[in-house]
């Protein structure tokens, strides 16, 4: 599903010196895996998420997603990949204001090249249990409901990879649990999920954990605590 090899990302900073956010990272993710990415702020996990989400390109290295080497793709090609293969879930939900739940879910369909069936949006809302809220504006929904609408939006184009960035960070315990249950169900349906979190309880839903520190992978281990062999886990 995902093969990342020797990915580096260097940012030019004002003043001339460069910052290396990612220092030669390599790892694989198999189809259907549920992986948690953890690390303190500044560890490079945001940069990694942006590259995996095709919102940014690595400075060097290769990134294969679902059989395509996307590391050198143009903006247009990356947009197509984001649309067809990736579903994003954010900490702040990021629903459009003054827009109904249904219209929010439909947005990825706008950018799909070719004919789309708008009935799919309602079916996807049904999947997250919110079909009764389809005509409600985003501001009329609770936080947990908003996040479920966002999940429906991420699911509508049946992506091969779901990227969740602190999906429970802005939710109370109960709503957070609902969202995690939903992600777990998606995992059981066979979807590949990559989750960035600080929260141990949330990370516990994942079957594998990637720890980042200083732009490198510190460890890669299954949640049972047994470290994976370096061949799978990549260089520390």
């Amino acid at each position: 599903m995902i093969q990342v090899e020797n990915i580096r990302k260097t940012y030019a900073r004002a003043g001339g010196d460069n910052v290396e956010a990612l220092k030669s990272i390599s790892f694989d993710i198999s189809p259907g895996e549920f992986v948690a990415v953890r690390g303190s702020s500044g560890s490079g996990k945001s940069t990694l998420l942006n590259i995996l989400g095709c919102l940014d390109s690595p400075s060097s290295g290769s990134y294969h997603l679902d059989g395509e080497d996307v590391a050198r793709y143009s903006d247009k090609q990356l947009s197509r990949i984001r649309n067809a293969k990736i579903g994003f879930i954010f900490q702040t939900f990021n629903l459009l204001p003054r827009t109904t739940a249904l219209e929010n879910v439909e947005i990825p369909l706008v950018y799909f090249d070719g004919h789309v069936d708008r009935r799919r949006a309602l079916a996807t809302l049904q999947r997250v249990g919110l079909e009764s809220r389809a005509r409600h504006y985003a501001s009329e929904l609770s936080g947990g409901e908003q996040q479920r609408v966002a999940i429906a939006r991420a699911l509508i184009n049946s992506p091969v990879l779901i990227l969740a960035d602190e999906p429970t960070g802005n939710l109370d315990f109960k709503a957070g649990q609902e969202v995690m249950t939903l992600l777990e169900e998606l995992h059981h349906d066979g979807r590949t999920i990559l989750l960035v979190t600080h929260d141990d309880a949330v990370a516990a839903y994942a079957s594998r954990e990637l720890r980042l520190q200083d732009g490198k992978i510190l460890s890669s281990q299954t949640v049972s605590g047994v470290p994976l062999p370096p061949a799978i886990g990549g260089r520390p």
Partner: protein
Amino acid sequence: MKKVRLVRQAALALMRYRMRTILMMLGVVVGIASLAILTSIGEATKRETIERFKNMIGTFDTIMVRPGGGRSRGMPTLVNVPPTLRFEDAKAITELPGIKSIAEMQSAFDIDIKYRGKAASPAVFGVSANWLRLRSDEVADGEFFTQDQNTSLARVAVIGTDVRSALFPEQDSLGKTIRIAEVPFQVIGILKARGAGPAGGSLDNVILIPVNTASRRLFNRDYLTMVIAQLKDPVQSDAATNRVAGLLRQRHHIQPPGLDDFAITNPAATMARVTQARSTLAKILTGVAIMVLLIGGIVIMSLMSIAVSERRREIGVRRSVGASRGDVVFQFLLEAVSVAFVGGLAGVLIGLGGMQIAARLEKLAPVLVWQPFASAILLSVVIGIVFGIYPAWKASRVDPIQALRS
């Protein structure tokens, strides 16, 4: 298909931020409305001027020669005629190449006309028999005199409607004998009313009699007030003017630096000057309206730029679900163009209404000229594109990651 969906997204966004959309439109509405009104008034005024001019001169395929010289432009003076333009000059002009025919004219303004105790003092014009054709005049009742009547010095008269109302308020005038400076003339025709000339005075307070009759029986003059020469080719009016001038200089023995003792009016050239002067004024007014329109464009640009900052999160979402930079540019540019287009449309509608009011106030015929309105709408679309490009570009440069994390 995708483009259609993007259009819908742009429309939804404009409706979502209704207040801002209306504010963005305002400048364009005002600019386009004033532009449409000003250009339409300019156009209507121009047409009105041409109409009045035509009314006075009759046709544009003629040039007019009058004695006096000095002044070289403007309309001929008909009073105090210098005795320099003679019947023989007129005959010589007829023989020039490019001249189709000529009409001679003598005039007097101080002659009393009487009919049974009623009196009038219209302009008395002695003219050739072909006068009607050269002036695009018409006889409403009765008939005009013939060349034979001119040659035989017949005492016949064709009167204008003002004269008829003065002398014959309640009865038929045809066949009656009126006295022009105590000489009896028979009324054989009534001219069609022409209304006001360019200066506003009536063109109907006039009596036409054969020019030879006027010369021998009334005025006792052998010089002319004016010679009208009809051209074979109206486009060649400048060449004909030069030819006539050359001929008259030769006949009158005028050598440079001597001044001409005649003046030639070329209505086609004068008309061109008049309409050009009008359009210069129109250009200034149009310039002002375009300034307003530019300000409208700047309003769109600044409000749109603010909107981009406020909608960073939306842009981030769109990018994350598959919008390319081009898609973002397209949507925001489309929003700007739609605002400008709808504003332009509203401006045109307001302009149409304003045009009706202005036409009534200015007593112009409410001319509906569609070109200014069509170009106004086109212009508003151009404004939308020009002033939408910067905010659209700015929108495409929003960093989705930062926008989504804020």
